């Protein structure tokens, strides 16, 4: 793998609102970006203005230092290296700038600009050799050699961009990051530059930043869609364009006017939009039933639901005594329910007393942290299957008619990323979650007819009591709850909150065997 990006985040100080004593608050530019890029691949990063795409490009090339996450280039984490330690990285990764005029030093000729780069990286040692080499580079980007003696301001926009490309390919980099490099150009010039890039792409990897999905389609084999600093969707170009998973990507595509006559296009959006907003439920005003709400992710759900304005929340737990404080603080909004989801009578009672629910959150679960063969007995395995699979299924079965009556609504099943790959250290837990994942898919299909959205949430390790013994990066339960509720509002079916989950999911999409091998290393004990 040439470049692995994990949970990459950047926040900068808001200098505009800074005061004498405070240097401005941190503003999130982007958050939790995950992708891989192999040698020879090209990735398009697409987003609207303010999505943080240029900042992401500058962080990948380490013009900015990320505030969180890792950047593995050729297996070395370069995210926190200092400028003087970046030496070999600098020659392997090159950047092409959006504004070609400002990226070329106005006081240097094209020859100086290109040969400076060649000499810095010791590709050429003598000036005359560098000059000849610069001439060859101009040939490659389709500029006459006579342009060597010109200054940047004497060239046209397209020609400047070609010089930028020549400079970028000069050290024969493994990765080129191109930031909106065709956005200011005319269609015909743009097509020429794109053709040039397609040709050069074969020599190395390319990350191509653009606001224009059409341009990305021309160049890239993978696409990452960014929205307000968050990774909205990542996939192979063909699949993403033919069958976009996220609603936002669908919106973006639908908003692009193709050059063909289509008198209904302008009105179409309005129709679709209103239908969509009807389709997706709002948390505000929703009546929610949360299991396992006394701690961990469940407690985070309750807090988030309150702050998002849910009108009524049934908070269920095996032991409701600890919930009294919370209930009295939010009088009238919270209804405590004593519930063990393995107990059918309690479930029946709960459903009878909660006929207004339109969002069910199946959060309750257990983890015995035991292996499959080396465990003493099958108690843990049975218990986990009982709660995590049968209990959750029972809840879905019980509440499905209620949801139908209330207009469809949604179910959130809290699974785990371990539902998709087995971690031997807690092998039986993974089995139960895997069953629950399969169950989620089946329930989703069965309930599609009554317009119930079934969301499967697959986080990595979450910072709760359950994962106390796990040492390693953990997600904040709040983030998990937030991502899940976002998914309900946006109509997303599968949620991978956090860097670890996204990384695993992506790994599984690329090479499932490798992921399995990686997890197999974590044996019990």
């Amino acid at each position: 793998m040439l470049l692995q990006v994990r949970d990459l985040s950047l926040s900068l100080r808001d200098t505009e609102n800074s005061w004498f004593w405070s240097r401005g608050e941190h503003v999130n530019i982007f958050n939790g970006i995950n992708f891989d890029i192999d040698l020879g691949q090209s990735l398009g990063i697409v987003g609207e203005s303010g999505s943080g795409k240029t900042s992401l490009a500058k962080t990948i090339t380490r013009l900015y230092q990320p505030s969180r996450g890792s950047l593995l280039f050729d297996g070395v984490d370069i995210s926190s290296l200092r400028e003087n330690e970046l030496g070999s990285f600098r020659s392997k990764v090159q950047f092409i700038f959006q504004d070609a005029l400002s990226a070329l030093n106005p006081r240097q000729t094209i020859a100086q600009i290109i040969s400076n780069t060649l000499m810095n990286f010791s590709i050429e040692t003598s000036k005359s050799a560098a000059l000849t080499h610069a001439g060859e580079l101009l040939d490659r980007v389709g500029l006459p050699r006579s342009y060597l003696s010109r200054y940047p301001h004497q060239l046209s926009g397209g020609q400047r961009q070609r010089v930028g490309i020549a400079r970028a390919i000069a050290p024969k980099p493994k990765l080129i990051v191109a930031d909106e490099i065709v956005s200011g150009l005319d269609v015909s010039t743009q097509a020429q530059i794109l053709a040039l890039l397609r040709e050069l792409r074969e020599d190395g990897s390319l990350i191509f930043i653009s606001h224009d999905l059409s341009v990305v389609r021309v160049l890239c084999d993978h696409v990452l869609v960014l929205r307000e600093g968050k990774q909205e969707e990542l996939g192979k170009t063909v699949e993403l364009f033919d069958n976009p998973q996220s609603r936002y990507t669908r919106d973006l595509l639908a908003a692009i006017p193709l050059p063909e006559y289509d008198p209904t296009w302008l009105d179409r959006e309005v129709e679709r939009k209103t239908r969509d907003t009807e389709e997706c439920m709002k948390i505000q005003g929703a009546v929610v039933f949360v299991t396992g709400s006394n701690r961990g992710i469940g407690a985070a759900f309750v807090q988030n639901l309150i702050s998002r304005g849910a009108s009524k929340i049934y908070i269920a737990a095996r032991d409701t005594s600890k919930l009294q404080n919370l209930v009295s603080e939010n009088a009238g909004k919270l209804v405590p329910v004593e519930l063990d989801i393995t107990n059918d009578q309690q479930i029946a009672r709960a459903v009878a007393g909660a006929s207004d629910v339109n969002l069910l959150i199946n959060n309750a679960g257990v983890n015995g942290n035991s292996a499959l063969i080396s465990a003493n007995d099958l108690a843990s395995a049975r218990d986990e299957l009982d709660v995590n699979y049968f209990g959750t299924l029972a809840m879905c079965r019980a509440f499905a008619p209620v949801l139908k009556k209330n207009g469809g609504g949604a179910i959130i099943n809290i699974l785990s990323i371990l539902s998709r790959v087995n971690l031997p250290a807690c092998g039986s837990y993974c089995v139960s979650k895997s069953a629950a994942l399969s169950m989620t898919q089946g329930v989703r299909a069965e309930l599609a007819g009554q317009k119930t959205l079934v969301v499967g949430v697959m986080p990595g390790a979450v910072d709760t009591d359950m994962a106390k013994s796990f040492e390693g990066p953990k997600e904040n339960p709040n983030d998990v709850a937030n991502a899940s509720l976002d998914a309900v509002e946006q109509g997303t079916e599968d949620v991978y909150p956090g860097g670890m989950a996204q990384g695993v999911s992506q790994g599984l999409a690329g090479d499932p065997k490798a992921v399995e091998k990686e997890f197999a290393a974590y044996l019990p004990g």
Partner: protein
Amino acid sequence: MPTTSVFKISSFSIFVIVLLGFAALFAPIIAPYDPMAQDLKNSFLPPFWLGGTSEHLLGTDSLGRDLLSRIIFGARAAVYVSVIGSFFAALIGVVLGLLSGYFGGALDALISRLVDAWMSFPSVLLCIVLAAVIGPGLETVIVAIIIIDWTRFCRVVRSETIVQKSSDYVSAAIIGGLSPLKILIKEVFPNIAPLLVTLLTLEMGIAIVVEAILSFVGLSSSHIPTWGGLIQEGRLYVNQAWWLMGAPVFCIVVVVLAFNLIGDSVRKRIDPVLRA
């Protein structure tokens, strides 16, 4: 920015500055009289076109000293002060401005606070107080110019460095593997240089005025003739012999204008971007 000034011809200013340099270098040779030699019988002679004699082209002062010779020797003091003063003020200001603007951080905070404190006070008064503290003399004037005017360079160079630093070509140089010091010297500095040349020529003019101001209030050397000193003497007799003040004022005005014009045209000539 207005660029259509009627004074486009820089040959005027070059002539003035060459003349000034010539007068300063060869003052003892070209001056018709000893500037300190008194001739009380021939005091207050008017210039030749106002009825004076051709022996004293610009007339004589209250002690009968030849005004032309005094002005030629005054040019010497002016050039001495302005060249040395501006050079060191520029040196200090540019180095601090470049470092402060490019590296930022604590160094920048320190330097820019210092500049702010310096600028938050009327420079003329500070100059006068400073000169009074050090005691009269040409060297005093030079020191005063350096201490007051380094901020002028520092401030401009710092803000220009910050502008240049944020442009993409500096990022491109980082990507191109250049070390920060090399970027500062090879990429950023050449882009600031034209501005610097302009600042430096302007500063020469300013230094000459500062010298005049200090000698006008009696804080420069009283042993050799200076233009400011001549103005001060002239001010006393302005109602009897206005040319005593008029001649040195004329000289300073012409020189200051010349430096201004040359600053402008040098900038336009050096800058390949402006030339296009």
